[in-house]
């Protein structure tokens, strides 16, 4: 589904990603872990098409298409979803209005009829149950005055509404208490299917107790320096990142 080859990206002349290689197939969950500043969020942003990052080398194909060639909105319409680490507030625009615009633009791109108000609300009700989100939250201005947990839950709700094929969760666990973490993870697990894939970007192993990854990759200094299975995450939880840093840094000096 997603194939990343030798991806280099920089911001304001600083190279953050220095040759990422990653293959993600349908039905898989990949966890990207790593110390602060290793490039995890940058990778998520580059995949979603954030302007500030310049891709200097490498290629990314998504469902056979050159992902880097697509505008951010077209990436979304093709089925790439990014759950933001810091969801943005849009005053005066209700979640409902926002999502209806989004859902119908995505549908138009996919050659589907727009949903009328009744069908849209029915779909919303159905998905609301999935992520245990309150109707009241959705009639308020998007993310404005939402608590950290509400914002993250709203991200997963949007994901449920847009039905992406590739979901990228950028530090979705940060700022969540244990109950919110459970609800958010539940949502993600229920949305998982044979046809979709998920990339979970996280600093801590905690989230992976709820969203069990098939593969775990450790990002350090803009490269994937170690890949493994769930056990690798456990090992990181126990030993921290220092041993990997040392391993990599000593190799570099050789």
């Amino acid at each position, binding site marked *: 589904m997603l194939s990343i080859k030798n991806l280099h990206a920089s911001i304001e002349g600083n190279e953050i990603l220095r040759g990422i290689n990653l293959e993600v197939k349908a039905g898989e969950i990949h966890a990207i872990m790593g110390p602060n500043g290793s490039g995890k969020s940058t990778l998520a942003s580059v995949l*979603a*098409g*954030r*302007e*500030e990052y310049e891709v200097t080398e490498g290629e990314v194909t998504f469902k056979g298409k050159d992902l880097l060639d697509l*505008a*951010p*909105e077209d*990436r*979304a*319409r093709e089925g790439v*979803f*990014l759950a*933001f680490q810091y*969801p*943005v*507030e*849009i*005053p*005066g*625009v209700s979640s409902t*209005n*926002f*999502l209806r*615009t*989004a*859902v119908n*633009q*995505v549908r138009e*791109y996919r050659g589907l009829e727009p949903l009328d108000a009744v069908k849209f609300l029915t779909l919303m009700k159905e998905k609301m149950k999935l992520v245990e989100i309150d109707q009241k939250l959705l009639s308020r*201005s998007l993310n404005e005055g939402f608590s950290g947990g509400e914002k993250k839950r709203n991200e997963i709700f*949007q994901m449920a509404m*847009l039905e992406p094929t590739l979901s990228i969760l950028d530090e979705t666990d940060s700022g969540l208490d244990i109950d919110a973490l459970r609800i958010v993870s539940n949502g993600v697990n229920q949305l998982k299917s044979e046809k979709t894939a998920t990339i979970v970007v996280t600093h801590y192993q905690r989230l992976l107790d709820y969203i069990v990854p098939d593969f775990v990759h450790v990002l350090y200094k803009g490269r994937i320096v170690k890949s493994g299975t769930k056990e690798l995450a456990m090992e990181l939880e126990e030993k921290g990142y220092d041993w990997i840093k040392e391993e990599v840094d000593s190799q570099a000096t050789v």
Partner: protein
Amino acid sequence: MSKDNSILEELTSKEYEHGWSVNYEADEAPIGLNEDIIRWISAKKEEPQWLLEWRLKAFRTWLTMTEPEWANVHYPKIDLQALRYYSAPKQIKKSKNLDEVDPELIAIYERLGISLNEQKRLQGIAVDAVLDSVSVATTFRGTLSKLGIVFCSFSEAVKEYPELIQKYLGSVVPMTDNYYAALNSAVFSDGSFCYIPKGVRCPMELSTYFRINAANTGQFERTLIVADDESYVSYLEGCTAPSRDENQLHAAVVEIYAGTHAQVKYSTVQNWYPGDKEGKGGIYNFVTKRGICAGDHSKISWTQVETGSAVTWKYPSCILKGDYSIGEFYSVAVTNNYQQADTGTKMIHIGKNTKSRIVSKGISAGKSQNSYRGQVQVMKRADNARNFSQCDSLLMGDRCGAHTFPYIDINNPSAKVEHEATTSKIGEDQIFYCNQRGIATEDAVALIVNGYAKEVLNQLPMEFAVEAQKLLALTLEGSVG
């Protein structure tokens, strides 16, 4: 930045939708401004002597006045002697029976999306259509007159309701009020008049649609709305003009009188030609709008969505004379390219327990300058006056400007006056967030701007609100990358 620029270029190639004009055989005054011209206009309109005298008095006062320079707008001096002060289609008949209006004139309005055919028209809105210097037609006069409501062109009102005109003309905006009001008083050619009798709630929206068509002609019209005790009316105003390289002057006067327990709601969607991307051409929109809450418990509410004009200079105001009277001002002013807007309001609290509310939302894009200028004045006698003002500015890009000039003048210690102001920028973060959900940038901007202006747009009558939303999106199309 690079994307910013490319989208800005795209925007500038966007055509102003109503920029066309038609050729009609015109009945026009000679170019220039002097007493003879004023006599010419007055004679053309077969006006009574008192009105001619009134005009001449205004003109003589105007000659002693100088153009105001305090507004935060810059434009070359207008040569008022090079303008034409009257231009009307020859087809205009004396009879105002709708069936007899020249189809060519009706077609002009059809093209603007304003149907003058009462059957085709959405029920609920009566229109007075003003083309250059004259009213072309007024719809639903019959229906309204059954309720005693007068709704007609100003010229007809002068003939048919001289006592009302004589009583109220210049009673809210005196002829000597300011430079442009005085000029208007001297040369005004037409406009709308509306009278709502005591205890009547006007069952439909009344509206005036102003269209400038002729070149080198100024449009000077007056609107006078009189709401007698315990009456209610909602009034709408729309305006467009052809795209021309020369600037054109539009100097209108709107006067509103509200009696005891009367309520008047006045909404404007102003879409005059704003000039091209280089700042060439466009309308100079120098307008005086004022209402008086003369009776106790009366209310006047101004709502304006300003998207057009090269230069706007406009402060719809309320004189809160009656006790417990309420004044409101809701405004969204958008400027793009080289547009300049200096707009706001004046709330003058005279009566006791008077209240005013000001919500101003400025949006600046391109190289435009957008100023809010507002005055809250509480007079000595106005015990317990309350005012709340909120002035927000939204900036798009880094070459535009937003300015706020609040003036507060309090002469009564029991007054409570609150002022809140914010300035924000449409964030790339917000746009990217929308993009990431599949929403195209243009639609994202529209969504964000409409959210920002929601509080004001909510004040507009339904159909107008939808128009205004589209207009906001269109004016700002492509102004953020």
